Structure formats: C-alpha cells, structure tokens
C-alpha cells in the first residue's frame, strides 16, 4: 500500500440550515485498503459519502480523492470512483447488459474495452448467463452484485459501497463480500464501505472509522477498537463508542430539514 492517502478528509462540516449533520470530521484512507465507515442511523455516514462522491458540497473543510480537490475538480474526481448507493440505482426495465453499457458510455469507456470489461465483470459476479434478462427479474442479491459490477466498469481507483448488503440474506451477503475481497486482490481497488453488520466490518475491513452524531469517535483496526474499548467483539466496541440508545434515522433533524425542502426547491 502506498503512503499518500487515496482519500483525505480534513475537518469537513456539512450543515442543513441550523442542523449540523457532519461536524469537523477528519480521516485518511490508504490506497488498496478496505475502509469501513460505521455509525448508528443518522450518524452522518451517507452525508459523508455524498460529499465524497460530489453529490453534496461540504459547508466547510477539505476533501481530496486521489490528490484532487473533490469540490474543485468534480469531473476528474468522478472518473476515479465507482459508487453503489444505499438505494438501488439500476434501471429495472433494462437488461443487465444494457445497464452496464449505459454506465460505460457515461464514463467514456471505449466500445471495445466496454464489451470486454462488461463480460469480465458479469462473469466475475456470476451474472453472465443472465446478462440479457431484465433487471426487474433479478433477486436482491443479484441486483447488488450487478451494481458493484457496474461501479467497477470504468476501473475506478475507489469503490464506495453504502450499505451494500442491506436486505440481503446471509448467503448473498457472504458471497458479496467474497467478491469484494477478490476484486480488491485482482484490481487493487480501494473500498470505502458503510454497513450496519458489525461481523461484516470485522471480517472484511482493514480499518474502521466510527461516526456518531456527526463526529468521528474512533478510527483503527478492529483489534485496535476492541483494545481501546476493552471489549472482545466489534459490536461491543461499537456500542461502547456510540451508546445503546436506539436512533431513528427518519427522525433525525437532517432528514427533517430535507423533508421540508422536498416539494419545491429554490
């Protein structure tokens, strides 16, 4: 792994009106590592990913991806990452191949390379036989695999996975992480992921950052977090760091702010 961070987050703040969703967060992600970003519902994980993927402007602070300022060089930054959003983003009325093809065109992958890469990835994610089927006929696990394959089509340096295993059965989750580890080994891609499943983070992540109430509360390997909190599991360490109070994401102030502005904007 190289020395220069592939992602550098320095003192970022994101406010929605008076509500501070992300508050003075700083961390680095090294090239080629699998970095897990954990936190309770509404802690600021998705807001951070949205800022890193150019969908939201930070209110303050600096974001760098592969040495580029994320807010100043959005187009160049976009070429360097792939993203699997928390909500599905496939076109279910198109086939798997067509979804891949559209992505390839949007990311300027030349036709010949596009075809080769689509085939490679669809085979890697065991979707080749279903390439001409409409996505609406796929299971949840297949859709997630297709989204990851699509996110890798343009050979990004960083792959963002926002809750990629949400709603999947244990078999699909296990298979998906196997794929993610394999592709890290095969392509050296850096993986930045969020998940609610502590066992997954424990198993796949090289390093973990824990965010709560918009603030970073800990960073380190799973073993370091356990040592730091005097616990014997990542879940216990997570609870020690973030408390046991149940968070209701739909009730967070940031979401309420977005709801208010939802119908007519500006």
């Amino acid at each position: 792994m190289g020395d220069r961070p592939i992602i550098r987050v320095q003192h970022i703040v994101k406010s929605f009106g008076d509500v501070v969703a992300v508050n003075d967060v700083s961390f680095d992600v090294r090239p080629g590592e699998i970095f897990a970003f954990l936190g309770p519902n509404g802690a600021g994980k998705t807001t951070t990913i949205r800022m890193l993927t150019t969908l939201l402007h930070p209110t303050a602070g600096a974001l760098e991806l592969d040495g580029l300022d994320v807010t100043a060089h959005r187009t160049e930054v976009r070429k360097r990452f792939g993203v699997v959003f928390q909500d599905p983003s496939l076109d279910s009325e198109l086939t798997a191949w067509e979804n891949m093809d559209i992505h390839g065109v949007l990311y300027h992958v030349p036709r010949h390379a596009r075809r080769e890469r689509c085939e490679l990835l669809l085979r890697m994610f065991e979707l080749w036989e279903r390439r001409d089927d409409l996505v609406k006929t796929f299971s949840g696990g297949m859709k997630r695999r297709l989204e990851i394959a699509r996110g890798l089509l343009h050979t990004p340096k960083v792959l963002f996975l926002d809750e990629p295993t949400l709603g999947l059965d244990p078999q699909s989750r296990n298979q998906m992480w196997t794929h993610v580890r394999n592709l890290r080994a095969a392509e050296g891609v850096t993986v930045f992921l969020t998940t609610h499943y502590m066992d997954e983070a424990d198993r796949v992540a090289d390093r973990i950052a824990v965010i709560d109430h918009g603030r970073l509360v800990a960073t380190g390997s799973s073993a370091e977090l356990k040592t730091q909190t005097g616990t014997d599991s990542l879940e216990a360490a997570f609870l020690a760091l973030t408390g046991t109070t149940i968070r209701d994401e739909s009730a967070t102030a940031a979401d309420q702010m977005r709801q208010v502005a939802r119908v007519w904007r500006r």
Partner: protein
Amino acid sequence: MPVVFILWLREVKKYLRSRVQIVASLGAPLMYLGVLGFGLGPVFRRAGEGSYLQFMAPGVIGMTVLFSAMFSGIAMLWDRQFGFLKETLVAPVPRLAIMIGRTLGGATVAVLQGTLIFVVTLIAGFRPVSLFAVPLAFLVIALIAVIFSALATAIGSSLKEMQGFQMVMNFLVMPIFFLSGAIYPLEGLPRVLGALTRVDPLTYGVDGVRGLLIGRTHFGVAVDVAVLLGVGVLFVVFGAWRFSKIEA
C-alpha cells in the same frame, strides 16, 4: 454525443417494451375522438364548420403529444425515487448532455405516441388535405414534443415527490390542453379566453398541425413555427438550468 444517444435510446427502448404504457396512453385520445369527435360532429356541421373529426384530429394528436411529453417528467421523478438519476448525476459528463438526452428521448416517445394516434384518426375517417404536408406536420409535432419534454424536465427537476405531479397535471397540463383550441375554433372567443389561448404554446402547435393537415389555420403556419421555435429554445434553456440545480 454518445451520452445523449445512449440516454435517448434508453427512453425509446423502455417505451417500446412497455405495451401497457402504449395501450393506456391511447385511452384519453380515443375517448376524445369517439365521444367528442362523433358526439359533437352534427352540432359542428349544423354550425357550418364542416367535419368536426377533421377539425379535431390535429387537436387530439397535439393533446397526445402534450400528455406523453409531460409524462417524461414523471419518468424523471421515478428515476429520482428509484435511484437511476443518481447514477447519471455522479457520472463525469456535463449535466446538459444528460438533460438533452432525456429530453430528446421523452420527445421521441411523444412523437411515436402522436404517430400512433395519427394512424387511429386515419382509421376513424380523418383525411389530410395533402399527403405531402404530413411530414411537415410531423416536424411541428416534433417541436411540440421538444417544448413540453423540456418543460417536463424543468418541472421534474424542481419536484422531489410524485404527488406534486398531480398538481402539475391539474393546474398546468389540463389548462394548456383546454386553452389550445384543440377542441374548439379560436375565432370569436371572448377577449380573456382569446388572450389566454395566445399565451399557450400548444395553441400554435395545434394551429400549425391543423394548418398543414387540413389547410385551416388561425395564425398562419409560419407564425406558428416561429413561436414554437422561440418557445422551444426558451424551454430547453429553462429545463437545462433547472436540471443543473438538482441535488441528489
């Protein structure tokens, strides 16, 4: 250009695969043709205005294109709700290319719908005065489609929820249709109604199509086309501006 083409192709493919959408979209035009076209036909004829079916067919085609084009705004809200829009917004391409691809796709679907209704009107007994004018009429139809697809993009970019589109249908699309002169002649209207028809872009679209297909025009085809071109540029710029403001 490849970005514009692939997003245009996506809209067209989805339309051609959706038999339900094709059949459902025939409902309202067929009702207008059947009920109004034949129901009011005798009254229209007694008033010395000739065949109501001949008069109304261009209006029904215009209505079909208007509704289809505006529904591309719903498709955009759908894409926003189900995530595909986000996939395009994080891509390293200009938003303008995405907007143009989507708008042209929506416009093409609207023209295809209009073509379908044109065939239906021919079956029902509508006869254009000149076959040579038909391609020209379709150019006007394409202009109508682009105008309202661009408007739908602007509206779809400004709304975040499907429910908002119901309001758009009731308070914008229906007035645009009813004020366009699609189902009544523009001559002799009360002053206020006459003024309202003149600020409705569809009025010029229907008038242009009618002028080319049956030789009956209120403003003149040249004026109609000039207005449509002007409004088209305005709405595409407006749609592109609204689309550039979307935050996922």
